[in-house]
């Protein structure tokens, strides 16, 4: 490790100024420090610890029915929130299975998003729930839709002087259910082999809105419009779910690696997508928690 400068920010302004001056932000360390120690990257020369910045903490239910997550909201906090579990369920599904209990206690949603892994757990749910992130630089703040945040594996559209300070999720329409599911070989300390997220709105027995996103199946987590089109206007029955799953598999461009071959991932994409959609529909209909 070659960290030369370490500072601890006590305010967002401090943190943003340090990032703009070239420091890498660190909170839980679950990606930055692990990446450096496993040789994937080197530790940056300048680090600013942002974990003590009170304004960046919290999981807050908003008056308009939306939800605000501070960048430092941990997976454990998110998974423990009753509001997240009942109304933003896909996100709860995701945060509950990140790493181990230590990863969930220390790892943050801001870090998860900015690490930009195409296999991250929280990305697909946040895309399907229509979340935006707030990026702050010394010259101001801007909002970016989560689905526009990633430009490639490990790459984001954030400028070098921008810090992700929060995530906002709009109120889901009445009759909405959501789910995130991954193909896993073990239940903890796992990275998604294939993942799928769905958020669907059901009214009078018909699917009025649907968002479907795939995880670990392309260079970035992204929505599959063909899968969504197969669901919208349908009764959400098995034929619609089947064709949505097929659309996800057709749109996938997976890699082969130690966790699975591209062929296997493509074959499993349809299965995992169908299960996620089915689970989201059940929740939308109030059939289970």
């Amino acid at each position, binding site marked *: *490790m070659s*960290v030369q400068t*370490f500072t601890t920010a006590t305010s967002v302004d401090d943190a943003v100024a340090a990032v703009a001056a070239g420091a890498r932000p660190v909170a839980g360390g*679950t990606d930055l420090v692990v990446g450096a120690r*496993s040789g994937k990257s080197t530790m940056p020369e300048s*680090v600013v610890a942002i974990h003590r910045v009170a304004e960046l903490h919290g999981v807050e239910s908003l008056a308009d029915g939306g939800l605000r997550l501070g960048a430092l909201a941990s997976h454990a906090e998110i998974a423990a929130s009753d509001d997240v579990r009942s109304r933003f369920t896909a996100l709860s599904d995701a945060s509950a299975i990140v790493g*181990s209990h230590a990863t969930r206690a220390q790892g943050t949603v801001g870090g998860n998003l900015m690490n930009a892994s195409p296999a991250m757990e929280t990305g697909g749910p946040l895309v399907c729930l229509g979340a935006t992130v707030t990026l702050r630089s010394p010259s101001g703040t801007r909002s970016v839709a989560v689905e526009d945040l990633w430009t490639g594996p490990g790459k984001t559209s954030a400028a070098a002087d921008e810090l992700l300070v929060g995530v906002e999720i709009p109120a889901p329409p009445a009759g909405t259910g959501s789910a995130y599911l991954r193909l896993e070989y073990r*239940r*903890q300390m796992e990275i998604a082999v294939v993942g799928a997220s769905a958020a669907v709105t059901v009214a009078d027995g018909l699917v009025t809105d649907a968002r479907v996103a795939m995880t670990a199946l392309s260079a970035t987590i992204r929505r599959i419009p063909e899968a969504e089109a197969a669901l919208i206007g349908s009764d959400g029955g098995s034929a619609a779910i089947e064709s949505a799953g097929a659309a996800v598999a057709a749109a996938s461009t997976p890699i082969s690696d130690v966790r699975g071959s591209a062929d296997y991932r493509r074959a499993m994409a349809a299965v995992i997508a169908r299960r996620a959609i089915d689970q989201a529909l059940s929740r939308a209909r109030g059939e289970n928690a």
Partner: protein
Amino acid sequence: MKVATTLNVNGVSYPVDLDPGTNLLAAVRDVVGLTGSKEGCDDSECGACMMLLDGQPVNACSYLALQAEGSEITTVEGLADGDTLAPLQTAFLDLGGVQCGFCTPGMLVSATALLEANPRPTEDEVRIGLSGNLCRCTGYDGIVKAVLSVAGSS
């Protein structure tokens, strides 16, 4: 350049000088001198380095030591009350939760955090709670039995 800081480990304040890139495990083992916590994978996979940071579990190999300034750090050395082992430690010994012992400090710390958050876990919850800790000897059975035997007994 070294940075002067204070680490509070098991209720004792240790003034230390650290390189900014030093991880918490190296700081506690090599500088503070408490060697109960182990370095296994050095990659946040095995849990041998597990400590508590203000009561929350952390893979100390992957956490910058300077970030722990102002926090309460708990290691396996902090679990016993003087010479009296914690009930969890006694249960590990009695029920075959220890063989080579390398994973044991991390297992005990993880189990302590688990029982703090969930005093009456099911067997499945114990297995999930400890799945960030790898053991190559016991097959986990004695460890799970030990944790369950203590659960809800205090």
